[in-house]
């Protein structure tokens, strides 16, 4: 998957390049609007990350130039949290937007959604180590023992299991499990994780549900078997 990053902030470019490369993307970079517009129209990319504030030609100008010739999905980065910016961008053909400051995990999530990149095999029976999650009968077994989970706890587990090995941010979990799309200062995710962890990992030596401080949670088998 090829992504073009059009952004003039050197530090942002650096971390996006290394971060996205590590996630398996092929990253090209343009540092100003004119170069970006030229690259976006001359070469084929699967998705474009486009900053609004750019030297020479602003993001909207790049978008118009691109849309005159191509339908490459575009995600806009805007520093101004203003509705007119969004309307402006989306009407001109941006497919999505993120407001700075944004989280890297969220950007990756949006890029995946835009390119509909296939996730790890979507099956109805997911296995993580000795954990088995049956999405159809809505049952979870660990080491042959059925886990007694509430509906929400199961939903949380299935979200984590579907994306096993991926770090899920609290924001994303809130959205996927509760369909709530704003940041809440209620400790909903923490509480739910705590309860799920007690049932999932409590009696077992090998822990599967790990907390990545400051980022989120991941469900995976770890060599050391311990918690991060």
């Amino acid at each position, binding site marked *: 998957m090829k992504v073009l990053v059009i952004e003039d902030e050197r530090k942002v470019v650096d971390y996006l390049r290394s971060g996205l490369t590590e996630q398996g993307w092929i990253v090209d970079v343009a540092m100003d609007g004119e170069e970006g517009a030229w690259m976006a129209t001359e070469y084929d990319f699967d998705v474009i990350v486009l900053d609004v504030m750019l030297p020479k030609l602003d993001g909207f100008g790049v978008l118009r130039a691109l849309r005159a010739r191509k339908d490459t999905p575009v995600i806009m980065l805007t520093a101004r949290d203003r509705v007119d910016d969004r309307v402006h961008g989306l009407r001109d053909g941006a497919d999505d937007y993120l407001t700075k400051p944004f989280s890297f995990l969220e950007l990756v999530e949006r890029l995946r959604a835009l390119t509909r990149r296939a996730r790890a095999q979507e099956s109805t029976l997911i296995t993580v180590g000795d954990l088995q999650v049956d999405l159809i009968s809505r049952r979870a077994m660990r080491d042959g023992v059925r886990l007694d989970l509430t509906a929400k706890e199961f939903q949380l587990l299935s979200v984590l299991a579907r994306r096993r090995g991926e770090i899920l941010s609290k924001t994303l979990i809130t959205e996927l499990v509760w369909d709530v799309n*704003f940041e*809440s*200062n209620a*400790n909903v995710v923490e509480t739910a994780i705590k309860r799920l962890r007690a049932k999932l990992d409590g009696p077992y030596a090998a822990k599967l549900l790990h907390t990545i401080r*400051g980022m989120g949670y991941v469900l995976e088998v770890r060599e050391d078997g311990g918690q991060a």
Partner: protein
Amino acid sequence: MMLKRSISLRLSAMFAAVSLVVFTLTGVGLFVLMQRQLFNELRETLDTRARIAELIVSHAPTVEKWAFVQEKLRDLSPADSRMHYFVESPDPRFSFGMPIVGTVRGSLGQDHELVRQPGQNYDVILRRYTVPAAGERPAVTLVVGTDCERTELMLRRFGIALAVLILVSTIAVALLSRAVTRFGLAPLTRLSREAAQLSPSNRRQRLRSDDLPEELHDLTTSFNGALERLDRAYERLESFNADVAHELRTPVSILIGQTQVALTRNRSVLQLRQTLQSNLEEFERLRVIVNDMLFLSRSDRGERASDLTEVSLRDEVSRMLEFLEMPLEEAQLGVALHGDATASVNTSLFGRAMSNLFVNAIQHSPPGTSLQVTITPQRGHVEIAVSNPGEPIDPVAREHIFDRFYRLQEARSNSHENHGLGLSIVKAVAEMHGGTVFVRSAEGANTFGFSVAVDDDSARAQSELEAPRGSRSSVPLHVSP
């Protein structure tokens, strides 16, 4: 341009214009009156003289006597006299004088006519008498005339004098009224001097309104009111800036400190990882503060909520209760939900406000108690309130509790999780929906709530349909007409 800017100039110009009109009307009136009077006088003199002449003519039946008539008539009209006599007769022996020839310009009353002789710039008033025949004298026509040269000259002079007088008085009025309005507007000048001295450095200063005339008193009072409101907003902004700086200072100093500590020695990967993770937590905190501040500034700019959908607020509150189920359970709190209403809201913003109200209630409720949520449709708006049992909040604190970064003393301990913007976000959401916020303390319960504006018709329809309150299962029916 100048007239637009200066009230006193404008006023004196208007006074001058008004006096010009009044003076002109008076002048024209005077002139007409004078003219009529003078012409009447002329006519009367003419009539008196004519009667004498008629008498003289009618008493001369013979040629001998006619010579006497001619002498008499000549005596009646001396060289400088304005009177003219002329006797028209079929018999040339009985005639007198030269006929007055000219164009008839009109008549004066029934008997007099106005004649303009060629080469003259004044009229002559003529009256004709027919003197019946007597003796050898045939019937003759006696014409008596008087010229108006002097009268017309007089009238012309009078007119010019009037015009000059009018002009001079108008100018005098203009100058005097300029002085008078300046004097009258002196309080305004003083006021503007005072207002010019207002500046952010002496914000407490107000305009003095005690010795001002009535008209300016109201203006000054409302102006001072506006200053007061601006002052308060300015004060809030100032303290808000200080609070923001303070709020950002903590995470920033943690970041600097722990990063410096981590870099002073060779650290293991694990140690470095821990530092980075701790940094990330602080960054997250900064991000949340920045995003919330941006959100608040949007509502400060008067932005209204978009993407409105007509929903049952009870359904939306229930959705948030489902979301907060676990924290509520952990805090051992029950929830009772009363009432319902439909309103057009941005469900995401509404949910955010509800979530913040619940988080506030959860933090301040003793375990084992119950929260009461009420949705009350009212005229023009719907109130949504969450009450929790607790110590009554101090009235002073109540006034500020929706202010940014305002925290009650007890809440300061867990400031790390709670950056003090929760309730001000509730307020912002309410304002974005055309509503307000309120807090009440009564009977051992504290109630926090907000309102959203609704279309009046739908609100009334809703309140008629409102089910009896107090039971959780009382969901009102939505009857469509």
